[in-house]
């Protein structure tokens, strides 16, 4: 565990989260949320939680994002806030 790397990823994660909830285009938000998940998964892998990281990679960054995309493509990409 390298705490500087850890901290950098953490900051990336926070930035991604902020962007994901603030960007007006929902599709972008979703993709950024995917990035967020992936960064999280990196973080956990680096913390020694391999199983959690694996799951987050398949679920959070994979299935979850895909479900979001599928839903957004059937509704609207626009968001007022």
């Amino acid at each position, binding site marked *: 565990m390298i705490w500087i790397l850890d901290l950098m990823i953490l900051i990336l994660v926070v930035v991604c989260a902020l962007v994901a909830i603030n960007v007006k285009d929902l599709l972008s938000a979703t993709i950024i949320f995917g990035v967020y998940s992936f960064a999280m998964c990196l973080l956990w892998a680096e913390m020694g939680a391999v199983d959690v990281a*694996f799951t987050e990679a*398949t679920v959070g960054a*994979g299935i979850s994002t895909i*479900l979001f995309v*599928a839903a957004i*493509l*059937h509704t609207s990409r626009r968001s007022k806030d």
Partner: protein
Amino acid sequence: MRLLQDQTAGQKLGESLIIQTAVRMLVPFIQLFGLYVIVHGHYSPGGGFQGGVILGASFVLLTLAFDQKFALKYMSEKANNMLSNAGALLFTGTATLCAICYGGMFLDYSALDKLLPLGPIAWRSFGIFVIEVGVGLAVMSISASLFWLLGSNGEMDEGL
């Protein structure tokens, strides 16, 4: 091959022969990897849940590259439902079976030793394997069906 031509004849935006062929080749490997993740959960990261998601992802990939009807040929809605039930039943059923066995408790795999004497600890290991398979089945079918339903807005036809 004929199917492929049909597909390309009614080609929509984003469907390309290269991708479709690549996906066709890739899908068995993905599924194999998914199975590996489930089975090898005892020794490496992974297990029923992760493997199940990977298996489900293979169907998602098929749907994305072709369309939903094509993917449904591999696993129909009915089969999907059966599999999810089977997976969940495998887990809960095993758990209850342990309780039914004389002197056993709920989810106490070592109690299954009375059915087939392999040794209590071996049964624990094997029991974990059985339930991982159950989880895998359920997760695979449901992650696929979640995507299909959301992707086709509940119509189960063309998909995205």
